[in-house]
């Protein structure tokens, strides 16, 4: 089992550009969540996807958008990059259906994508 995988590992962009980050969930998982971890801070929830729809969203602007594909993989898109978007972006997957019991109630995290905005 490959676990949660993310690509690319590192990325350098300039202000105003757009970026796409990718995530493949752990085998058997169909829920994917994205987190932003700024340097020296804990991860902050961006949004969650289940059945190809955004189910929950954190306090992030509309510049942050996402997508989930039929194979459960997911993309995070950030438009009009700002210096403050520089962070480690973490993808997490689980087998939980949002708001329902029956899953393992545990998220597994990928290694992250380090985004640097210059």
């Amino acid at each position, binding site marked *: 089992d490959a676990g*949660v995988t*993310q690509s690319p590992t590192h990325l350098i962009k300039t202000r105003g550009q757009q970026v796409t980050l990718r995530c493949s969930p752990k085998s058997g998982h169909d*829920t994917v*969540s994205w*987190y932003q971890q700024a340097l*020296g*801070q*804990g*991860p*902050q*929830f961006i949004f*969650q996807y*289940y059945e190809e729809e955004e189910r*929950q969203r*954190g306090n992030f602007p509309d510049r942050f958008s996402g997508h989930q594909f039929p194979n459960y993989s997911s993309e995070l898109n950030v438009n009009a990059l700002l210096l403050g978007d520089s962070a480690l972006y*973490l993808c*997490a997957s*689980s087998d*939980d*259906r*949002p*708001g*329902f*019991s*029956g*899953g393992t*109630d*545990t*998220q*597994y*995290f*990928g*290694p*992250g994508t*380090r985004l640097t905005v210059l």
Partner: protein
Amino acid sequence: AQSVTQLDSQVPVFEEAPVELRCNYSSSVSVYLFWYVQYPNQGLQLLLKYLSGSTLVKGINGFEAEFNKSQTSFHLRKPSVHISDTAEYFCAVTQRPGGFKTIFGAGTRLFVKA
């Protein structure tokens, strides 16, 4: 809404000494509780979790944590630390019954000295 407070930003400790990393949470609903570890330039690895049942939870690498509902705490302990335990530790909560977003604390940097 939920919130997590990790009471120590840094904890220095000598090798083979015991350690406790403190975590308090606030929530108006029932929650699940987690501890994750993050090594430099890596993602988060699950150490242990409390879902229900016994309030003393054992995890990987010799760590354990105790859920105290009355004090809304979930402190992490290890009786004897190793140099390799040097890392960032995050306490986290998520609303029951599951599948909701996870709220993390700011992290505690454990530094084990020889």
